[in-house]
Structures are given as structure tokens and as C-alpha cells.
């Protein structure tokens, strides 16, 4: 390898593909009838089948298959009408049978794609397949304990093509994928609970080079932040090695969350031979076209729900985030507000409830997504801690709309309502925030301001009508912001 190049001569491109294991939101396990409950007392959600006792046989869980098909369809995959189960062998105390039942050469679905929101780029999905999870090991100082509750919990593995070219794209891909899985009810996709495990493989190459570089794979990334840091780390290492003219060996790393370091787990020469072969205990997995059609019917168009002003929560109906996003943008909602609605279901729910009370999209976005969200950010609260019921929020917006409250008054009121649980009207009166609409009081204030500013009155009368804004402002401050600026303006105009 020519090492004459200085490190500034070459710029590098990163190539990333990602495998995601997502826990399917079923009540029972993939191949037995045990409940999925990984929080239960260790080894209480187990049976002869998931413990791999002599003589047992697996039975597939239809619910898991349906969820797998749902995910595959949402990712635009072709669902294979016949796929197969395979055994993947390795010895580990958390793997009771000594093999994992998975899908190998005939996966459930293939050839999908996922569009990165905002970036407009599409990442191809290579395959979606189903498999079972292993148990959980807890390493103590003297002994290692094993909990089989998680053993046999259904997983879908979603594998992307190496189409990702930056950390940002990787981040966007994973966030959108997670959003889709959650929106469809396919998975709870809670990363810290291991419901959504990301394993990126990373290689770098000089820009312009066709061949892919040697890959590093990273496991144990339990947050989006860890994914970003891990990828950045692997990229930096590889570029440094290339600069030094060192050969890169294909290596699997574990992300060390505490040290924020990559720890080599195994290199390719010692990689396991999993000895995949067809699972003889299960017939091929047959999916009927009618089943696919039935699931497709559940994909509701966003317009149905947005125009009806209700969210759809039934298990058979679901809206893809991309569609929802488009629908809201078409309705004129700002991009940053759209993202809140698409990514945060509790905010979406609140928002839709406001729309149901005949609050306009504009009003709802201003007062919920901007003002209320700002208040909560300041108070470091979540929506559930907000304690302003939809009804009271609607009242506040109505008071403003009817001129009973000024904008500054409304903001003050909202801040006061947060975390209090008092009614909008009650608190407005208590705080004396109501807009002054009494003609007499307005006139009094206006006269006072006019008397204080004879030169400005002069300018106005000479035709510089723009100066009225100044006078309005003066009146408003005179009335401590409690007047309706439009009414003030009308009074001033009359007097002038």
C-alpha cells in the first residue's frame, strides 16, 4: 500500500449497514406458550419447551408471524409466501438447546426500503426474518446466573443494505425504523430495555474507491447516543489505521458504555461456524396472500384520521409515520411541529383532542406545541406532569379568541396553570389577567397617553399614521398588558 500520501490528501467515505433485532410485542413466546414477561422473577416464565428439555418440540406463534409481516410490509418488503426455519448453533449457557431457531436462506421477507425523513434518501432493506431470543446471563464475582424468562421471546431481525453513508444517516435510519415499529404496534422498541438492538457494521474507503473496506461490527449499543459514538469511534479508528498503512482485520466489537470504548470481541479467523441447517421440527412457514391482504388493509391512510380529528388506536389499524408526516405538512403545519406529532404519541393525542374541541390547527400548534411545550421545557416536566386538562386548554384558547384575554395574558395564565390543576377562568380572575374591555377605562388610559405625548399626536395628525403603534404600546403598558390591542387602537383612533 502506498504510504507516501499525507493524511490530508485522502478523504474517506464511510459505508454502514445495520442489523436491528426488535422484540415483537406478543403476549407469548415464539415457540411455546409461556408469557413474555422479562421483568418477572427469574425463571418463572419457563416451560419444558423454552428450557430445551429432552423430547420437546417447538410450535410457532401466529401472532409473532403477523407482526413480522406487518413490519416487513411497512418497510416495503416482498413477503415470501414460503419461508423456512433454520438452526443456528453455538454453545452458551443462556441457549438451552445449543441452537437458536431462526431463518437463514429463506427469510420471511426481502427487498424493502426505508426513506430517511428530511434527507430524502432511501436505504434498502435486505431482509426481515423471525427468530427466538436467548436467556440472560448475570455475571457475579464467583458465579454466573442465568435467567431463562427471555429465552424464546420472539424477535424480528431487520437487515439493511450497506447504503448508509454518515452517522447522521445511521441515526435517522434507526429513529425512523423505531418509529415505524412503534406506530405499528410491532414492538415497544424500548432501547434501554433491549427491545431494539442495533448492530451496525462499518467500513471506510477513500472517496472514489469502488471496493468496500474491511468491516467492524459493533454490538451492545443501547441508546442512539451510543450508536452515534460507537460508529464515530469505529470510523476514526479505521481511518487512522488506513493512514498508518495498517491492515484492518474484520472484527466484532462490544461497546463499553462506561468507558465509551470499543472492546474487540472476536476477529474473523476465530468467528463461529454456526452450522446452519433446516429446522427439522418445523414445516416451512407458509403465508397466504389473503393474510397479507388482510394486514395491508390495516394500513389506514393518514387523511382518514387527521380529517376526522381522531387517532386510531385499534390493533388492526395503523398509520405509517411517513404518511402522517406528509399529511400534516400538507395541512400547513410547520415541520418542527409535525415531528413532535409523529414521534411523540402523547403529544399527538393531546393535539388531536384539542382539534376535536374545535380548536384550529394553528391555535393548537401555537398554544400546545409552542407555548405549552416551552413552559414544560422550562419546568423540566413531561406532558403527563403538565396537569392542564384538554378542557382547560380549550377554555384558555377560547378566552383569547374572544378577546377576553390578551396574548401576553394568555402566556402568563398558561405558565401559572402548569402543574396547578386550577381552571383557566378561575385562575385568570384570581390573577386579574382578564383583558380590559370597559370603554371608560380604555378612554381614560388613552387620554392620559395622548396628553403625555403631544408631539406624537402632532405627527399622527400630519399624516404619519404609523406612529399609532407607539401610542398603542404606551396604552398597553399603562394597562399592564390587560387590554385588547385592537380595542386600544380603535379608541385611540377615535380620540385622535
Amino acid at each position, binding site marked *: 500500500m502506498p504510504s507516501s500520501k499525507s493524511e490530508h490528501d485522502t478523504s474517506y467515505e464511510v459505508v454502514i449497514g445495520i442489523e436491528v433485532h426488535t422484540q415483537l410485542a406478543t403476549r407469548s413466546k415464539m415457540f411455546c406458550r409461556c408469557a413474555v414477561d422479562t421483568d418477572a422473577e427469574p425463571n418463572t416464565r419457563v416451560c419444558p419447551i423454552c428450557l430445551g428439555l*429432552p*423430547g*420437546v418440540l417447538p410450535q410457532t406463534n401466529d401472532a409473532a408471524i403477523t407482526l413480522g409481516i406487518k413490519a416487513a410490509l411497512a418497510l416495503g418488503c416482498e413477503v415470501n409466501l414460503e419461508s423456512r426455519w433454520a438452526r443456528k*448453533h453455538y454453545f452458551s449457557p443462556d441457549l438451552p438447546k445449543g441452537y437458536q431457531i431462526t431463518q437463514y436462506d429463506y427469510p420471511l421477507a426481502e427487498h424493502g426500503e426505508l426513506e430517511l425523513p428530511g434527507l430524502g434518501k432511501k436505504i434498502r432493506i435486505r431482509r426481515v426474518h423471525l427468530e427466538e431470543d436467548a436467556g440472560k446471563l448475570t455475571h457475579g464475582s464467583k458465579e454466573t446466573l442465568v435467567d431463562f424468562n427471555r429465552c424464546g421471546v420472539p424477535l424480528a431481525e431487520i437487515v439493511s443494505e450497506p447504503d448508509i453513508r454518515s452517522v447522521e444517516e445511521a441515526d435517522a435510519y434507526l429513529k425512523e425504523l423505531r418509529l415505524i415499529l412503534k406506530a405499528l404496534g410491532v414492538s415497544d422498541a424500548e432501547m434501554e430495555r433491549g427491545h431494539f438492538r442495533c448492530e451496525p457494521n462499518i467500513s471506510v474507503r477513500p472517496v472514489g474507491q469502488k471496493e468496500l473496506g474491511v468491516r467492524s461490527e459493533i454490538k451492545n449499543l443501547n441508546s442512539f447516543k451510543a450508536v452515534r459514538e460507537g460508529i464515530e469511534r469505529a470510523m476514526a479508528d479505521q481511518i487512522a489505521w488506513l493512514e498508518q498503512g495498517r491492515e484492518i482485520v474484520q472484527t466484532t466489537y462490544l461497546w463499553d458504555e462506561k468507558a465509551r470504548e470499543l472492546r474487540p470481541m472476536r476477529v474473523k479467523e476465530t468467528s463461529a461456524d454456526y452450522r446452519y441447517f433446516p429446522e427439522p421440527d418445523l414445516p416451512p412457514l407458509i403465508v397466504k396472500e389473503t393474510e397479507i391482504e388482510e394486514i395491508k388493509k390495516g394500513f389506514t391512510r393518514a387523511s382518514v384520521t387527521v380529517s376526522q380529528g381522531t387517532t386510531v388506536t385499534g390493533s388492526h389499524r395503523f398509520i405509517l409515520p411517513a404518511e402522517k408526516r406528509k399529511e400534516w405538512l400538507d395541512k400547513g403545519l410547520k415541520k418542527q411541529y409535525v415531528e413532535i406529532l409523529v414521534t411523540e404519541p402523547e403529544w399527538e393525542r393531546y393535539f388531536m383532542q384539542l382539534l376535536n374541541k374545535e380548536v384550529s390547527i394553528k391555535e393548537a400548534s401555537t398554544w400546545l406545541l409552542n407555548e405549552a411545550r416551552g413552559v414544560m421545557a422550562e419546568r423540566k416536566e413531561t406532558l403527563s406532569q403538565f396537569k392542564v386538562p384538554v378542557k382547560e386548554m380549550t377554555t384558555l384558547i377560547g378566552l383569547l379568541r374572544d378577546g377576553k384575554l390578551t396574548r401576553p395574558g394568555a402566556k402568563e395564565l398558561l405558565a401559572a396553570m402548569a402543574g396547578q390543576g386550577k381552571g383557566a377562568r378561575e385562575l385568570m380572575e384570581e390573577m386579574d389577567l382578564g383583558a380590559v374591555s370597559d370603554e371608560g377605562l380604555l378612554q381614560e388610559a388613552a387620554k392620559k397617553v395622548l396628553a403625555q405625548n403631544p408631539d406624537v399626536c402632532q405627527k399622527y395628525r400630519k399624516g404619519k399614521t404609523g406612529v399609532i403603534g407607539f401610542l398603542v404600546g404606551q396604552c398597553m403598558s399603562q394597562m399592564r398588558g390587560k387590554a385588547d390591542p385592537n380595542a386600544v387602537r380603535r379608541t385611540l383612533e377615535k380620540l385622535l
Partner: protein
Amino acid sequence: MNGLPTIAELAFALDQGDAKAVEVIAEIRKNIETHESDVNAYVNLYQNEATAQAKEADAGEYPAGKTPDLTGIPIAIKDNICVRGWPCTCASRILNGFLSPYDATVVKRLKAAGAIIVGKTNLDEFAMGASSETSACGPVKNPLDMERVPGGSSGGSAAAVAYGGAVAALGSDTGGSVRQPAAFCGLVGFRPSYGRISRYGLVAFASSLDQVGPITQTVEDAAILYSVIAGPDPDDSTTYPQEPEEMDLTGQIPRGTKVGVMKECFTDLQDRRIADAVMRPFADAGIELVEVSLPLVRLSVAAYHLLAMSEVSSNLARYDGIRYGRRVEKLGLKDTYFTSRGQGFGDEVKRRILIGTFGLSEGYIDAYYNTALRYRAALATQYEAAFEKADFLLSPTAPTTAFKLGERTNDPLAMYLSDVFTAPAALAALPCISIPAKDTVDGLPAGIQLTAPRWKDSQLLEFAHAVEQI
């Protein structure tokens, strides 16, 4: 011949009040006392439980006419089939101390029909063998000639029925393990179509080949046990969704029935006396015989062992000493694995795990496992062609009669070749039965093996029953 009635006879006698279950159990107890210490047919006996159950059966009613009913009938179960609360050793040290927390589907069905389980029978370790000599519980001997093996791997089941230790037994057949011991002990051994009988609770040896099957004194008894245990099972996804067809054991051979004589089996047979013994009833009865050629049968042992060993390497991975069975505690996980498995498995099991692991490994799977799979598909096609010409196919069950103990233990290849006539039907998933020929060879029984198209289990039993009457 074992001094005990058949299932059919006993059920009738119990119905009529001419017999008592306790009397039969007492008779069996006596036979066990006399023969068991020499024969070693059982791994575990449950005679007190059996006696208690027999008393209960006698106190209750024998539901006459309700078929199939096994109330009060003593049955032996091969010790690779799980019975709730009892050990299931598979004749291996690695399962030391393991108690099954559940009943195999076949056991559940036998219990539901009222059968009394007398004990768990000895076998080749994990059913891997053709002589019942690889058992960690010691070899089984053939009650007909104590110097000879009873066949295997269900040798304990066959020997127990042969000496009167049970009225009938269940075995398991992966490449011949029901049919060959039945042939060596002069009994009937029936391997149904793959998928007819649930494998749930049968400890896996080679999952794509394993089938439970009865070892009985008569074809009628095989049919009775079969009708109790066969049929779809939600716990086994590979079972056939339809119930078996009704049977009518008339003893008559339907006009126009054609039997295909499997050319390669007879050509390759070295002992002509076995061929003669197998052929004679068909000649006597004037049954129409046609010659059929299935050249691929000659490769069946190689293909069978490649597939079976590959599956063994997978199925036996679970015996790691972590959750149950024998654990030899060592410093570190790897050493615990190595020592537990190293001490827990016998040589034959280890040999098969090693070969199977090799056959599935990267770079070799195409040459071995996948080639064997292609062979399997091609063999099934040859069978289909043969069944165009004949209703049933005929061959000897084994190339020899029972051989001597120790004769083949140091020659695995010779041992594997015992499966040469039984492996093909297993690979093709076909129903296949061994019935004893009337003529013996040097005083030892020879087996007549009949094969039928897949799912024609009932027709095969009807025909075999008729042949048995000749």
C-alpha cells in the same frame, strides 16, 4: 410364545371377566424375576405402581366394545420416551438424575386409554446403534439366544416382549430401530409414515427420521397400539393433520394385490436362506409378485448416516450439564462443558456428534449434508415409480439374523450396515412393517419387511395381517 396373551386376547378376556389385570401383572412379575437379570431389557421397572394400577383396573369396569381400549393392558416404553415424574435416561450417563416433568404425547394417549406402563426399556445410548450394546446400562441380550443381540436400538422393548416382560412395547425407529429388533426377536415391528405419530416427548435422535412405533406379538396388536397413539398433535408441527384411516383386519388379501420384490435387497443378500424364508409365504399363497428395481437403495446407509449424524450433532447440543442431567463442575465454562459431555456421552454417541458436526460445517455441508438431502429426494422418486408397479414392496428386514454379542462393537461400519434394508423406507418417510417369517434360519427368526406408499398405514397393516395368517 412368551406365555402372555396378546393385547387383543387380553382385552377380550378382561371384558369377559375371564382374566384379571393383577394376574397378568403377577405373571409378568414372575417372568421378570426369571429373565431380567440375564436379559437386561429394562432400565427402570415400576412393578408396584403397575400392580396398584392393575387392581384399580380390575375394580373398575372394562369398557367392552369401546375400541381402542387398553384398560389393564401392561405395556413397556422405550426409555427415550418421556413419562411424567420418571427418569428418562436414554441409556446415557449424561441424563443421570433427570426426571421428565411431562408425558410424551404417545404416553398421554396410552394412559388415557387405560394402559399400565410396566417399565422403561433399555436401548442403545440415545437410540444410536443396531444391537442395544451401546447402552450405559449394559447390553441387552436376545431371550431367544442369550449369546446374541436382540437388535437395536429398541432392543430392550423387543427383548421384554419376547421373554414375557410386557404384553407389548413402544420403541422408536430412526433407521430401523423398531423393525430390526422385532425381526431379531421374532416379533412384529411397525414404523408408521413419518408424521403419523407425534414425536413430542420422544427424545430427538434425528428429528427428520424419528418415529415412535409398536413392537408386538401380532400385527393386530400393532394395529391396536397404532390406533391409540397415532393422529395429529398440536404439540408436534410435523404430524399429518388427518386422523388415520379406519382398519378392517379381515385376513383376506384383496384380489389383484401386487407385491414388488425389491431386486437390490435380494441380490445383495448373502444368506439365501433368509431370502427363501421371506419369500415363502407369498409363493404359498400365490400372491402376484413383480420385480422392482430401486438402485438408489444401495446408497441408503451412507445417506442415512450423514443426515442422521448431522441432526445428532444439533439435537445433542442441549446436553451441556447446565440445566439438568450430569454436570461435572470444573473451573470455567469450557472445561465444565468438555468434561460433562466428555464423561456423559459414550463412544458411539461421540463418534456420531463428531462426524455430524463435520458434515454440517462450513465448506463441507454441500458435499455431505446437502448431497444426502438431494439423495433423499431422489430416493423418494424411485419409490414412487416402484409403487406404480406394485401395491406393497417386499424385502428382508435385515441382511442377517441376530448376530453375536460383541461381534460388531469394534466395527462401526459393519454395525451401520445392519440398517441397509431398513434405512431406505425411513429416508422416504414411508410406512414399513416387519413380521416374522414362519421359517427360521438356524433356529433364529428372520423378518419379512413390507413397505407401503406414504399415509397408506392402514392398508399396510391390513395386508401384513393377512400375510401373517398364511
